[in-house]
């Protein structure tokens, strides 16, 4: 099985998709995520842009079997929709794969039922009442009233379904490349349609809607096309209960701001990959006094 990561730097530079306590921990998380996964997968690849390759490959020294700079094509894309980097990466895959978020750590290999699945994801999640992440109605209204008006049938049909879920994509992939390409490129078309460029500008929750376009519409596409998603966990509750046995960690959302977890990540990376850790330290610490962590902007990277 092929492991894939993606890093589109425009949202990162604009602070529109990543909420790490400090950029240094973002880099340490990359080291941990890739370092662990390389024990379990046949090959590794990274889809990013020039700046992303500069940081992750040139400066941090992460090794990938394949490096794609295809996310340079998102230069003019709206960075509020940070999910585009992942969707484009999904669409470009030419062999069965698992996309791993950089805040996901696989301490054990994924089970065979996942690596052989047509489509795989982390776990289903319920659609909460008034959830700002899955406000399909607000998006529909925005597209109809302020955009190009086109809502795909997969979306409209799912909206009427008695039970609606989203597919949490801390990990995502599978063997059904045609389906994955159709889903991801279709969602990209919605987000990138010229008529929709400013359709969502009036929504205060615009950036929070990224999960709808990735995770809700994935479930909608799967339902419409009769594709079964194989989940690592059967629910969020079970993910919470079973993650340690499965050797699976996901620092979702605000967990990335947890100083205690960040310290443990640092300790782990320093112990297991000391050379990579030193490279990371050199990126951020002022060599003069050795104590002041710099931002990448101050350091001159990703500018």
């Amino acid at each position, binding site marked *: 099985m092929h492991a894939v990561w993606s890093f589109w730097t425009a949202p990162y530079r604009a602070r529109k998709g990543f909420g790490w306590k400090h950029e240094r921990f973002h880099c340490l998380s990359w080291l*941990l995520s890739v370092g662990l996964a390389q024990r379990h997968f046949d090959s590794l690849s990274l889809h990013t842009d020039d700046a992303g390759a500069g940081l992750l490959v040139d400066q941090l020294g992460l090794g990938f079997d394949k490096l794609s700079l295809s996310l340079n094509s998102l230069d003019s894309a709206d960075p509020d929709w940070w999910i585009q980097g992942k969707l484009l990466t999904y669409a470009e895959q030419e062999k069965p794969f698992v996309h791993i978020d950089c805040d996901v*750590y696989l*301490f054990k290999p994924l089970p065979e039922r996942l690596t052989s699945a047509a489509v795989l994801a982390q776990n289903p*999640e*319920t*659609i*909460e*009442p*008034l*959830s700002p*992440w899955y406000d399909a*109605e607000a998006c529909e209204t925005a597209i109809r009233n302020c955009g190009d008006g086109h809502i795909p049938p997969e979306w409209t049909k799912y909206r009427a379904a*008695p*039970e609606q879920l989203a597919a949490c994509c801390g990990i995502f992939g599978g063997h059904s490349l045609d389906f994955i390409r159709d889903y991801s490129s279709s969602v990209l078309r919605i987000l990138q349609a010229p008529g929709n460029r400013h359709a969502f500008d009036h929504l205060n929750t615009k950036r929070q809607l990224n999960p709808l376009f990735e995770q809700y519409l994935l479930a909608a596409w799967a339902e419409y096309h009769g594709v079964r998603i194989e989940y690592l966990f059967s629910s*969020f*509750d079970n*993910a*919470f*209960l079973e*993650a*340690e046995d*499965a*050797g*699976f*960690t*996901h*620092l*979702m*959302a*605000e*967990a990335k701001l*947890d100083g205690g*977890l960040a310290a*443990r*990540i640092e300790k*782990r990376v320093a112990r297991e990959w000391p050379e990579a850790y030193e490279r990371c330290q050199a990126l951020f610490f002022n060599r003069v006094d050795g104590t002041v962590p710099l931002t990448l902007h101050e350091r001159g990277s990703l500018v």
Partner: protein
Amino acid sequence: MTREELLTELAELAGSATQRAGPLRSGLEELHGLLDDYWFDRKSFPATNTALLSVLSDLTRKMDHLREGWDYNQATAQGVYEKTGGMARISDSLPQVFNVAKLHKMGKDREPWWHKEAITLPSVHEMISYLDMRWKELEQETDPTRLRALQELPPSFPSGNNPTPFSEIGFRTRYGYADTGIGTALI
């Protein structure tokens, strides 16, 4: 407030929900306050779970009428939605079993994970699901000692010595896990 007064008020709230679409939201906020009374003074209202569930179920049915309006008459539903500030859409979601008890059992020492969530509009459906779950837990327990222990548990969301008022609880599930992440002990 006595149990009877509480239940009467709840019933009135439920009965008037559809007639008073406008005040529904404020009615529900009032309901949260009443639930707080019940929550924090359980001994004044013994054995009320069934009665309370009955009243809340009635309220759910009333809200489902709003859902029907939403489903079959967009124009009317839009009006209801605007007047109620979104409550119609709450009823558009299926009740969810909010598995707080399981989390509580496994993590009593952890800081309650809903504390940081800003309150939006707590869902009556979720309250009902939770109460329903608690009630089933009581019903299914056959061991007398465990049953007594369950009965003595405060019928509240578990939050140690500082029970969180319903009116301050933000119901969170997806990002309920966000403060702690998943599987972080492995790091």
